[in-house]
């Protein structure tokens, strides 16, 4: 059994190019041009409303937490603030990175910069890595955003519910970029003319965190870090919980998002925090569709998709046993069943790697 090498500069990277898995044509459910145009249509209204709620609630919770600090009564406010900072920031980073959340470009860009900062993701580097994730979704050696590699590192995944390893890597990357160094892996997906921008933003962020550290030392309190940076740790759990479900335990090296992505029905609060990315098959198949019309797209194409998981819990009941099985047999994955109304998977495109499924 061959061990997987997820490196973007290793043998699987060249193998993906040679076998045609890289930059391949992917399956799309048929949607008429007229219907797709209506779905893709941009508007500012929903995202302005949601951003006012998001940032307004963030500020309110922060003010309340600071007001009550250091009393224990501040804890629930910090926890709520943390989720809005370190989890809702993830979906805002994502949607505004696609440029679909708002119709007005500067609004997308402004929220993208704010969310990139809260999530500690360099807005230049990560824009390019996410483009690659959409080109080569869960293609081994090509996709830089595979979260649950096989065999899954369960300790790493657990630690990231509190952002521990993510933040460590983010700080290392930020300091390295601020020192003017772009890594070999980053160079595989960030064009040369974009690299100075990544360095410039990293230097600005280092200055902000240095000011936060200075404030903490000056006041003799950790409060500045509970407001800036810290929520990326204690508020990360929701975006990790929802994010793992996107592709966890599903197929690798296939060119059909129905096989490697998961749509999960979620409660309204999680959907607000997650900005409807629970419709993840739909998002990958049609990334031009804004988050606020994904439910409509889901209704239109669900006849052609595997049945969605009915809840976050249902998703974990499917995914966790697959992770455990992959610890012993890393070729294992969940092959999702299609309804009778769906067009079949094209197996000839999906037999490149040795795989096993149930």
């Amino acid at each position: 059994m061959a061990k997987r090498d997820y490196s973007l500069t290793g043998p699987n990277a060249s193998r993906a190019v040679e076998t045609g898995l890289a930059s391949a044509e992917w399956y799309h459910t048929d949607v008429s041009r007229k219907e797709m145009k209506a779905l893709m249509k941009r508007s500012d209204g929903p995202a302005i409303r949601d951003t006012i709620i998001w940032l307004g609630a963030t500020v309110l919770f922060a003010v309340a937490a600071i007001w009550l600090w250091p009393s224990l009564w501040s804890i629930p406010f910090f926890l709520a603030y943390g989720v809005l900072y370190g989890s809702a920031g993830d979906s805002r980073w994502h949607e505004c990175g696609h440029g679909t959340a708002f119709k007005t470009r500067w609004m997308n860009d402004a929220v993208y910069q704010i969310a990139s900062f809260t999530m500690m993701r360099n807005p230049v580097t990560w824009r390019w890595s996410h483009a690659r994730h959409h080109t080569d979704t869960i293609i081994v050696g090509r996709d830089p955003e595979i979260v649950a590699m096989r065999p899954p590192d369960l300790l790493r995944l657990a630690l990231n519910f509190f952002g521990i390893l993510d933040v460590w890597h983010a700080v290392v990357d930020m300091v390295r970029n601020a020192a003017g160094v772009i890594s070999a892996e980053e160079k595989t997906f960030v064009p040369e003319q974009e690299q100075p921008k990544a360095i410039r933003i990293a230097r600005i962020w280092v200055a902000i965190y240095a000011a936060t550290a200075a404030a903490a030392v000056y006041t003799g309190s950790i409060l500045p870090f509970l407001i800036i940076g810290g929520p990326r740790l204690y508020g990360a759990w929701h975006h990790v919980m929802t994010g793992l479900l996107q592709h966890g335990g599903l197929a690798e090296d296939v060119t059909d998002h129905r096989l490697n992505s998961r749509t999960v029905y979620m409660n309204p609060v999680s959907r607000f925090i997650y900005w409807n990315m629970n419709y993840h098959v739909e998002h990958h198949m049609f990334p031009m569709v804004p988050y606020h019309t994904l439910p409509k797209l889901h209704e239109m194409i669900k006849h052609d998709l595997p049945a969605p998981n009915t809840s976050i819990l249902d998703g974990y009941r499917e995914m966790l046993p697959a992770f455990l099985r992959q610890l012993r047999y890393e070729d294992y994955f969940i092959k999702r069943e299609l309804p009778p109304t769906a067009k079949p998977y094209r197996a000839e495109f999906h037999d490149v790697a040795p795989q096993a499924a149930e």
Partner: protein
Amino acid sequence: MSEWVDACAVDDVEEEDLIRFDYDGKTFAIYRSPDDDFFATDGICTHEHAFLADGLVMDYIIECPKHNGRFDYRTGEAKGAPVCVDLKTYPVKVEDGRVFIDVA
């Protein structure tokens, strides 16, 4: 040397939209602007292989369906990441309800 090719009827393209046009092994995109003017560019994104005809026209911008790369379809100018290379544009003329592009 010009090589004018009959690409489509005027009515084949809705206002603020585009269609794909294949000719001689090459793919083009024919646009109809909100001002009812017609334009033509290469039909495949300069970033990665994606047909622009599946994308979204907003005013004078075509947005690629794959990574949301944006171009001004009047000039072909790439408007920022993830597209860095301009689109090639082609002269267009409208005669007797038909749209012609110069593919030379």
